[in-house]
Each structure stands twice: as C-alpha cells, then as structure tokens.
C-alpha cells in the first residue's frame, strides 16, 4: 500500500507554493512514497513516555542588553529585492480591487500556478 497518493502530493505542492507539472507530480508521488515508507520506521520505536527533543543546546530565553547594534541600512536591506517602489518591497496584487477579502482556503485550494 502506498503511503501517499498523487492527490495528496498535489495538495502538498499547493500548500508549499510549488507550481508542479502533471509529469512532476507522477515522479514526486512515487519518490515521496518510497521516502515516507522508509521514514515511517520511526513508528517502530516505543516512545510514548519519552519527551521530545527539539534542540540539543539547553539554552532558553537568551537575552542581551537593550542597546542599539549596527544593522543594515534601508538601502542595503532593499539591495537584493527583485522589485521595489520607493523604500519598499513591491509585490504583486494581493487582493482584487472589487472583491472584499475572502476567507482563505475554504475548499483547501489556493491560487494555482501553471508551470
């Protein structure tokens, strides 16, 4: 039995903002299936009472003095932007002009790009 379906891979691609072609979907579905079946072996370990480790360094709440440090200038911060307008990053339109903001992902699908 496969661990993941082609439809699920298409959904993951959408969630990941990756516009994949039909051909890529076929390839990825097979490969992700192999990988997921292999990594599912972690389930063999009896670990109900074991605390999780997110990180190996036992540091929490690392603080510093509240002193201004040198940082990037506005020009430097914008220097790599693919597009800018005045002192801002310019992005494509997020909302349509005549549409009110709609609740996102009602049907689980976001805008889908074509590659």
């Amino acid at each position, binding site marked *: 039995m496969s661990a993941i379906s082609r439809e699920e891979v298409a959904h993951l691609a959408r*969630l990941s903002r*990756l516009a994949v072609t039909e051909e890529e979907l076929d390839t*990825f579905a097979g490969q992700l299936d192999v990988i997921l079946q292999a990594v*599912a072996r972690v389930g063999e370990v009896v670990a109900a009472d074991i605390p999780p*480790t997110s990180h190996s360094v036992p540091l929490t709440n690392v603080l510093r003095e509240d002193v201004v440090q040198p940082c990037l200038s506005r020009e430097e911060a914008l220097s790599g932007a693919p597009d800018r307008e005045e002192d801002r990053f310019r992005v*494509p339109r997020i909302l349509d002009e005549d549409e009110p903001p709609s609740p996102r992902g009602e049907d689980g699908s976001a805008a889908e790009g074509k590659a």
Partner: protein
Amino acid sequence: MSDVTRMTAAEIAGLVARGEVSAVEVTQAHLDRIAAVDDRVHAFLHVDAEGALAAARAVDDRRAAGEELGPLAGVPVAVKDVLTTKGVPTTCGSKILEGWRPPYDATIVERLREAGTVIIGKTNMDEFAMGSSTEYSAYGPTSNPWDLTRIPGGSGGGSAAALAAYEAPLAIGSDTGGSIRQPGAVTGTVGVKPTYGGTSRYGLVAFSSSLDTPGPCARTVLDAALLHAAIGGHDPRDSTSIPQPVPDVVAAARAGATGDLSGVRLGLVTEFSGEGAEPGVMAAFRDAVDALTKLGAEVVEVSCPHFRYALPAYYLIAPSECSSNLARFDGVRYGLRVGDDGSRSLEEVMSLTRSAGFGPEVKRRIMIGTYALSSGYYDAYYGQAQKVRTLITRDFTAAFEQVDVLISPTTPFVAFPFGSRTSDPYQMYLADLFTIPTNLYGGPGISVPCGLSEGLPVGLQIMAPTMADDRMYRVAAALESAVGTLTPPEL
C-alpha cells in the same frame, strides 16, 4: 621555492610570518592552480580574485608595518556558498539566489577576515546543502579529484574537492547530516562537524536550524584545528551559540600527533560495524582500528540501539525545518521572481518563482516536511522523530560513560560514479547513515582519512561528547601520524 599549493596551512602561515613568501604570492599561486584545474574539477561557483589579492596585500602590509600576524594570516580559504559574503555572490547552489550579493558577512566569514585568511572564492554544493554528491547543485556537479567520473561527496563537495585538488589549503563547510564529514571521507581530506552551538550560524543560510553546523575542512588534522579555533566561539547574534570558549583543539591536535593514545578508550558502535557498508570500507576501517590499538588506545564495543532509527528520524526533522526555513524564498526580498506580468496574483507568482528556482531534491524535502508537520500526521512523524532524537541522545550519553569517543566508518561507501544514486533519492540518503546520529545529538564529529578501498579514500569518523571537540582531534591526529595523509593522483 617549492610549490606552496602543496603545503599545509600551518606551513604557509609560517612562511608568510617569516617573510619568506608574501601572502600575495601564495594567493596568486592558488588562483593559478584554480585556473589550471577548476574547469575539470568545478569546485568553485565564484572565484574572487580581486578580493583575495586585496586581502593578501593587506596581510603583507601589516607584516611590513611590523604587526604580529595570527596563525593563519595569509592562508587562502575556500568558503561553501551557503555562507553570506558581503558583496560577493552567494547562491547556495540554487537558481533562486542566482546573482544575489548579500549585504552582510556571516560571523564565520567575519572571523576569517579578522584572522587574516584570504577568502579565495565560494564553493559548489548541493542546493541548499541537501544532498550527498553535489549532483543537486543547480550549477552542475563537482568532480572528485581522485577520479573525475565520481562524486566528491556532498553537500560540501566543492570545499572538499578544492582541498584535494590543491586549489586551497583550507575550506569552510556546513554539516547538517554529514555534509562536511562525508565529502571529507570520499576525497581523502579532513572534515569536522564541531559541537552544535560551538560555531556561529549567523549568516549561514538556514536549512535545518536545529542541526546546521558550520565547520572546518583541511588536508591535515592540525590545519583543521587551527581553522576551528579561528572561526569558533560564542556569537551573541546566534541565539543557540554556546557561551563558552571552544576547547583547545590546536593543543589536542599537537598532543595527538605524538602518536600516544595510552589511556584513551574508543567505543566501536556495534550497530555500525558492518551492516550497510561496503566490504572495502570495513576492511580499511578495521585496519585503522588496529593502528589505533597499536598507539595504545583501548577499543571496546558499545551498543547504541537507537542509532538505526537516526536516518528515518533525520529525514523527518530536517525536511520539517527546511519546509519552514525555505518559505523565505518567495520572490519578494531577494533572489528570483518569475511570472510577475501584472496579471498574476502574489500566490501565483510565489508558486511560479519557487517552482522555477528550486530543484527537485529541495522540492521533495519541502513537501516531505510539509507532510510531516500537517495536522493529523504531526504526532506520528515529526513528534515521534523528536522522541527518537531524545533516545539517540541518551544512547550517546550512556556510551560516553564507558568510552571517551565513539568510532565508525564515516560513510558506508567510497565515492560513487555520477548518476548512480540520483534515480532513487533514498539511496542517496544512505550516504549519511553513520554521520547523522551526531547531528541529532549535537556533539562533534570528525572524518579523517584512514586508507583506500579500490584505490579510493576511506574515512574514519570519531564522535565525541558535546563541547569535547578536543578529544576527537587528539585521536584523529594520532591516527594521521600512524597512517599518514592521502595524496590523490595528479590531475
């Protein structure tokens, strides 16, 4: 004068400090070597001749002014293209960052400059450090100087190949699951993953933040230690940086070079003593263990029962963190933007940009991570992997109550031919079978050349407790004193 490109970093620094050769001459010799061989090796994505010569001139000027130079002043270093270099292209081996010139230096890069080393260029790598062969670089693979039809390891294959091809005596890598140690092993060079938190991640483009560890690569253990000392130590700009000095790895390397390991207990990991490794690799490894025994070390077998779950746990944790970290590549603040013709929405442009900019392995890992973090799957995958991580850490802690360090082969197989593991991504993942446990635990690991199999280098891995990096340097230097360094055939 003999060829400076064949010298160790320590030798070069000595010559420069004594004024027997100038830093400019050293740099030019390496630039000439790169010009002569890099069309075949392709270790570099960007060679910064101008910047390197300027840095070298500054070292020569300082010496002329009577200033005392540091132990690596004037030595060229190649930097993996995953670390930001101010004004110098940084691509991470990805099309999505093609042409990007970062506005700041990584802490490691800053420290390299302060140490007077000469940054000669940026090295090739699997895209965003995901891979074990450099075949996942968007700019074409790097060849192994031992056999140009074979992989140099990965993800830091460029850094390791640059050393083996005598294009640089020192290099920087980053190790998330073995990306410094495995390339070291298959190119016959030394690769060190320091203790997590012992080297700064500031300016290291993030792949898996709880695992990523920058570290030194060199042709000798002492050179690696000198570089480790130069780049390591606390950095307030990295919130997981350990606020303690790096152990004295240079002294440990010098002590180990005397070849005396009496009183040192080495743990042979039972679970890594055969299964999954090529016979030739195991034979070279066993010979090296015999050599270590002759130097006075005591070898005992230690079981680490959860190590067999390290690979699956890693391939859930690392992709999960990657899926989150790589969300920043959205075509807004830096890098590529595709399809922004005025008719498409932000989401469409992001999806087209990411599809065009990322290669297949990065896409696979982003999707695996997204899957493992999804509600409904989280507990069974990511949550369970984090618990396995705890058990692996406990295995290490228990083992280090019995022994000083653990040893294993670095990687199960010697350098493999191009294309032999790309069709099944999981076959590629197996290259990191022996290196991954250390990343999950957070301790240090080193790969040191230990012999040949079928004419190709084999590495021995030494794993030490957290912040006991010096222990592994001592053992590695002792092994090096017994078996020597490896010299690849002439290119």
